């Protein structure tokens, strides 16, 4: 673009022609007030006129946020004429604005107040007009006081163009104009998903964080930048702390992943930190009852018991469950504790239950089991194939990138999902496969691609192996054959295949709908097959992108909380690796692959595992076939649980240790795009609770193993020495947006996308996979397919989110989603109760009649202990990754009168 010379306030500056005066002024460090514009989000409606400036020669003042610069412009931003105009605008605004700044939440952070102060405007020459609109307090998180609204339109813009929820808009006209939610209802009763994006951009006190009302104003808060602990997106935000308490969360535009966007859990779901039912002291069960104990007592007991069991029954009768909710440092220490102190590789965590198939499948095909590309690249993909991920609810911020790709950048979206998820609305094609038939669908797509000669021959020849084998297999899966298996019309398969193969870049995104099957690994291999077949690996905005569920499930895997790997996926069976860790840790190590989560519980059930140490996990809610899992935990001779609340699993423990929330500790977590980011301590631990990394160190010390670090930064130093992919990760490098692994040394900038010129394993490998049916199919007695998942407002087993007032208010109970046709046949209506039963258990839940579920398929989330979906699910395992089949089992449904 052309450079031009302009003069602002007497200062000559060079500027790019066509940029706005406002942009140039910001670059030149000149402040121009704005009320409606959000130039960083590309929103400049030019409507408020607060940003007016004088351009010599122009007949009127111009709005700097929209006026483009050209050669020779002479601009005055603070002339008397400009100030006079701003004063009038301001006086018009405050004529109808309540002047109650002294009690307003926004005081100190309000654009209107700042303007009035700067311009010395005390009152309006236009008198006072009162609007007297009622407060809208219907939403549990947001208060709307539209009397204070200055009609800047920022909220409408962000809700409709970025969040794309379309909950609000301008309604009515002239003096009656106001922001309406849906058909002018309370916000709670509209489409609003309570993301609070609108609250973040409102320049005045019209939109307010409800829970923080009256608890402090902007200048009283210390802001601590940290990373959200609710999902794998890894959004950053600031905890606002006052007098040792977290009062609220505000988003921070500098965040790499999310900018100012957050979802409802991140923005409003942290009130659980200060709940009074937090665990605050260690508890020891005596005669079936928990009694308070000192840390010393608890450590002594655990140490004695572990030592005794190890001596009597051997190291492998002990096991450790680590946690995707804890930090990288804690996962590293716990696996070190398991291997070096207890002497067993029986360490695993709940990634087994969500993405072990990803780790197993992608490691075989590519050599590395993680999301190949980055979140920000999604928006630039030419096509997106989304399967088995209800992204809007489970990875809300990634869903925004997908929406952006489709609505702003013209990407074609193909959704393959048995449920009519929200993103289906954005899809060019929606393929509704029968649950459990993904391999067949992928083979069908590849069949078309090969038959029509659309495969990437060069990529296949140069970068892959095993193609002929694959070709032989998929040629059997003609669209017609696949239609019979999956229920997806043959023509749609053809269309989808053509889009996939011909788009310049296609990004494949999947989640647990692909992995949680007995064919989970096969499904994942299929994703790798199609991506390689079309040459969509190793380039920007393409790839195979598994979305990891919990905030640090990637990190927990990376740091070796797995029975077969040390940190960085270094095999326990590799003697060189073993020697390296032996030497570093100063002990002998076992090279026997340990047990996985479900195997640990099975072994406990059989009495082979005598003791389990569970760190911040809740297998008594999250595991499949719960009755069996709970029985196994009860049978465990000595169970130790650390957590922040009394969970279903902690109830069964012999010793409970009080851990802390992310607000109370330092550390790092790794999001789904392999980005290692800091979490920072904002407040002191509540009561006598301790961060898990400290607990592990002190317990090791007690057991006679020297484990001693002053802070998590020191633990990361040890990690980086022993873990090649984390080799360059040091705390002092993480302050600006973190680093994406592989990051082998201190100068490496991190890796945006994987397998660029070479796969981690050398050549990418095709695996010919045949379709297999799910382990349990519907039959006469159990005629429905039961499938499980999560909802936007809750996290995992609900331990935390159900303790958040607003989240629980908005989504208080388990719902079972049934197709209208099925509902009619069963004679049930919305809101009535049914009993859902499988061969393993039964539960009672409220019915939601919805087209989202296909006929014959019912869906439920697993967050609710009073209707625990996992009492029904099948614990049949994928033979390779040992992931259980959460997504398909057979149930029957009965109306309860």
């Amino acid at each position, binding site marked *: 673009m052309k450079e031009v010379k302009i003069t602002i306030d007497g200062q000559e500056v060079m500027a790019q022609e066509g940029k706005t005066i406002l942009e140039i002024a910001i670059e030149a460090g000149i402040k121009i007030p704005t009320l409606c514009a959000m130039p960083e989000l590309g929103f400049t409606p030019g409507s408020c006129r607060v940003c007016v400036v004088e351009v010599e020669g122009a007949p009127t003042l111009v709005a700097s946020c929209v006026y483009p610069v050209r050669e020779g412009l002479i601009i005055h931003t603070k002339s008397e004429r400009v100030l006079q105009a701003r004063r009038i605008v301001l006086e018009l605004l405050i004529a109808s604005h309540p002047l109650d700044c002294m009690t307003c939440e926004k005081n100190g952070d309000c654009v209107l107040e700042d303007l009035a102060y700067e311009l010395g405007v005390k009152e309006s020459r236009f008198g006072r007009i009162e609007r007297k609109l009622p407060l809208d307090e219907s939403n549990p998180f947001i208060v709307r006081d539209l009397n204070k609204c200055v009609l800047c339109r920022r909220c409408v813009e962000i809700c409709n163009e970025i969040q794309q929820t379309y909950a609000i808009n301008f309604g009515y006209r002239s003096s009656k104009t106001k922001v309406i939610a849906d058909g*002018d209802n309370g916000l709670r009763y509209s*489409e609003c998903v309570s993301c609070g994006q609108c609250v973040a951009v409102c320049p005045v006190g019209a939109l307010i964080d409800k829970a923080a009302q009256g608890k402090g104003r902007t200048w009283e808060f210390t802001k601590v930048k940290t990373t959200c602990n609710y999902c794998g997106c890894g959004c950053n935000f600031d905890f606002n702390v006052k007098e040792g308490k977290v009062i609220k969360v505000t988003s921070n535009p500098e965040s790499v992943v999310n900018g100012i966007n957050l979802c409802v859990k991140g923005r409003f779901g942290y009130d659980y930190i200060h709940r009074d039912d937090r665990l605050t002291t260690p508890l020891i069960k005596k005669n079936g009852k928990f009694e308070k104990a000192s840390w010393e007592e608890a450590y002594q007991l655990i140490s004695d018991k572990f030592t005794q069991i190890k001596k009597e029954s051997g190291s492998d009768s002990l096991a450790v469950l680590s946690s995707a909710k804890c930090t990288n440092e804690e996962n590293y220490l716990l696996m070190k504790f398991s291997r070096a102190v207890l002497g067993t590789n029986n360490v695993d965590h709940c990634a087994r239950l969500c993405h072990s198939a990803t780790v197993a499948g992608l490691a075989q095909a590519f050599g590395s089991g993680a999301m190949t590309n980055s979140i920000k690249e999604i928006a630039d993909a030419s096509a997106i194939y989304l399967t088995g991920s209800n992204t809007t609810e489970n990875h809300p911020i990634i869903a925004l990138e997908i929406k952006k790709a489709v609505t702003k950048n013209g990407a074609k979206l193909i959704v393959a999902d048995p449920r009519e998820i929200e993103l289906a609305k954005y899809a060019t094609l929606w393929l509704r496969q029968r649950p459990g038939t993904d391999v067949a669908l992928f083979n069908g797509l590849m069949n078309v691609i090969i038959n029509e000669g659309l495969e990437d021959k060069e990529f296949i020849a140069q970068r892959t192996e095993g193609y002929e084998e694959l070709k032989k297999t998929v040629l059997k899966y003609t669209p017609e054959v696949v239609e019979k298996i999956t229920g997806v019309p043959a023509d749609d398969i053809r269309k989808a295949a053509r889009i996939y193969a011909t788009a310049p870049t296609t990004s494949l995104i999947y989640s647990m709908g692909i992995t949680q099957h007995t064919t989970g690994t096969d499904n994942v291999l299929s994703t790798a097959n199609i991506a390689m077949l079309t040459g969509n690996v190793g380039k920007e905005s393409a790839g195979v992108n598994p979305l990891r569920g919990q905030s640090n499930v990637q990190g927990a895997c990376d740091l070796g909380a797995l029975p077969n790997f040390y940190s960085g996926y270094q095999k326990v069976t590799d003697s060189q690796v073993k020697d390296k860790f032996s030497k570093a840790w100063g002990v002998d190590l076992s090279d026997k692959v340990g047990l996985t989560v479900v195997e640990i519980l099975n072994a406990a059930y059989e009495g082979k595992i005598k003791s389990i140490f569970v760190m911040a996990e809740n297998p008594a809610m999250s595991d499949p076939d719960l009755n069996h899992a709970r029985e196994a935990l009860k049978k465990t001779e000595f169970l130790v649980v650390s957590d922040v609340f009394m969970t279903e699993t902690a109830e069964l423990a012999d010793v409970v240790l009080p851990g802390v929330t992310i607000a109370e500790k330092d550390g790092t977590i790794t999001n789904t795009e392999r980005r290692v980011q800091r979490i920072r301590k904002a407040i002191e631990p509540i009561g006598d609770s301790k961060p898990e990394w400290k607990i592990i160190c002190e317990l090791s010390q007690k057991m006679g193993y020297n484990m001693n670090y002053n802070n998590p930064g020191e633990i990361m130093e040890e990690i980086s020495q022993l873990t090649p992919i984390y080799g360059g990760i040091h705390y002092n490098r993480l302050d600006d947006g973190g680093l994406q692994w592989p990051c082998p040394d201190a100068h490496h900038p991190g890796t945006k996308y994987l397998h660029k010129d070479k796969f981690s394993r050398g050549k990418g490998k095709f695996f010919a996979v045949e379709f297999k049916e799910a382990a349990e199919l519907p039959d006469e007695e159990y005629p429905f397919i039961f499938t499980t998942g999560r909802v936007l407002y809750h996290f995992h087993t609900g331990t935390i989110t159900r303790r958040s007032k607003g989240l629980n208010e908005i989504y208080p109970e388990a719902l079972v989603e049934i197709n209208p046709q099925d509902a009619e046949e069963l004679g049930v209506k919305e809101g009535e109760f049914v009993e859902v039963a499988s061969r393993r258990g039964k539960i009672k839940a409220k019915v939601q009649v919805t087209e989202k579920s296909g006929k014959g398929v019912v869906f439920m989330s697993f967050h609710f202990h009073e209707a625990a979906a996992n009492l029904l699910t099948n614990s049949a395992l994928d033979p390779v990754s040992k992931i259980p089949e959460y997504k398909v089992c057979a149930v029957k449904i009965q109306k309860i009168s």
Partner: protein
Amino acid sequence: MTVKDIVNKYKNKRENLLLILHEIQNCHPQNYLSKEDIELLSKEIKIPVSDIVGTASFYSMFSFTPRGKYIIRVCESLPCHLLGAQTIFKAIETKLGIKEGETTKDGLFTLEGTSCLGICSVAPAIMINDEAYGNLDEEKIGKILDQIREKESKNND
């Protein structure tokens, strides 16, 4: 016609939104845009409810509350005003027992004010649904309203 029919008639196009809204309102026995109709429309035409209502609420011709079968619009602009629009208003108010913006209990009439109807030559003027009436006085108005009532009661027999 159902909402779906109306949307199809106008080719499911956003630029026809106002026409569609008019027709939906006219097809409703209570002469308004009901919540249910708006939701149906939103689904059919794939425009969010907030957008539809945002658009519709800009125009005074749309109502979001139930109205009578007959909408009486009394012109309030200058020529009519000078020639006695206020008397016309009063006459109707007394006759029907409702105030501006209200609907009779039997659901037959709603009384509204409007700006110039473009027939100032016969001021004072009103419109009842699509029918215009001019050169009005108290008596004439009484007759017009009685006629409508009569017609309606016959229809109901």
